[in-house]
Structure formats: structure tokens, C-alpha cells
């Protein structure tokens, strides 16, 4: 998803069942070709999430106390 404005929300995008990681990039990072990823327990590699058939996820970016975060929530009914 590109150039998502503040408070911007997308439709639910359908993906093939597989294992994926979460990445995101702010404009300042884009200039330097850098990006964030949601880390695994070691903090050194991206966490791998299992996207199973019938599941729903919310990839949420937010700012708390002037620090930006992002997290993947499983919101499957």
C-alpha cells in the first residue's frame, strides 16, 4: 500500500495463504531506501506471520508519545 495518509484505511486485500512479514516506510526513509520491519524475538530479523485460509489481519501503524510503531493484529472472527 503506497502513500497512505494519516487516518487512512484501506479495503481488505486478499492474499494467498503463506508466511509473510510486515514492512513499512516513511517518506524520510524512502529517500534513503530504508524501511522498518516488525521484529522477531531476537530483534534482528522480521517476524514471520502465518496467514491461514479464512483469517483476517489489521496492519496498524500508530504514534505514541511521538514515537512511531506498527503492529499486525489477527482479528479473525
Amino acid at each position, binding site marked *: *500500500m*503506497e502513500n*497512505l495518509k494519516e487516518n487512512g484505511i484501506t*479495503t481488505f486485500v486478499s492474499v494467498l495463504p503463506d508466511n*509473510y512479514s*510486515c514492512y513499512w516506510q516513511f517518506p524520510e526513509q524512502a529517500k534513503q531506501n530504508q*524501511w522498518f520491519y516488525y521484529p522477531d524475538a531476537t530483534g534482528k530479523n522480521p517476524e514471520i506471520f502465518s496467514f491461514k485460509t479464512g483469517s483476517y489481519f489489521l496492519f*496498524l501503524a500508530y504514534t505514541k508519545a511521538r514515537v512511531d510503531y506498527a503492529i499486525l493484529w489477527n482479528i479473525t472472527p
Partner: protein
Amino acid sequence: MKPRFIILIIIILTSNMTAFAGSAKLFCVNLYSEDLDFQLGEDSKPIFYFNGLKPYTPTRILSSNNFGKHIFYFKLSTEKTFHFWSTDKKNPQLCTVEADKTYCFVIGVDGSIEYYILAEKNDNNPKVCFLNGSNSTISRMEISKEWNKNPAA
């Protein structure tokens, strides 16, 4: 005996299918910095409610067959009385709930409320929705095996 048995099976199958196929889906995201309570619908028959939704967290999706137009009530978890959501500060905003649609309430950083209908493909593949609750535009959000290489979404 046999035809009756077959008819019974067909009735059971079709009743189960209609119970799930036509449901609306609802969830809520709290981007406000305090715990929130909310309720869609009246006390006598609320269709969607949650007490103590933590900041920066969503609820899980709830399926409902209670279609119609409903009032959205909300309050800080520390408050005693609910307020109704209104866009004109006088009349409650009615939230339409229809079959086969997916809805999302977003309680914003400033406490504002938005009610979205989120389209989705009618397949059983996993699905992901992106929400930017940060203070600035995000250039790119991606679900993939490796950054920027054949992203899935």
C-alpha cells in the same frame, strides 16, 4: 424414507449456509490514548459492544445478522455514562448494518469517530487491511517475504 432423509439434509445445509453467508462483519479500532467502552445498538439488544478497549488496539471481527440502523454509544472506561455518536452534536448518527458488508469503527487520536465500509473479495483467502494511525503519511506498507520484492499486499 430415503427422500425424506435427503430433504432433511438439504434443509439443514441450506439453513446453516444462510446463517453465515449473509452476516455483516464489524470491528473497532481505538487510536485514542485511553481505554474505551462502546456499544452499537440499544441496551436491550446491543449488536456489538466492548468494555475496556486498550489504546492502539482493535477488537476481533464480530459477525452479526442484526441488520438495520443503529446508534453508536461510547465513553471512556473511567466514565459512568455513555455518549451517542453525533456528527451535528444534536442527533445521533445512525450506523447502517447490512448483509455481506464489513464495517470498521475507528476512534481517532483526537477522539473523533469514523465509520467505514471496507470492501473485500468474496473468497476464503487470508485478508489484510492497512490503517495509518500515525502522525504522518506512510510511503509504503507491505506484507511480503522480503521488503519490496514481490509483495503480497
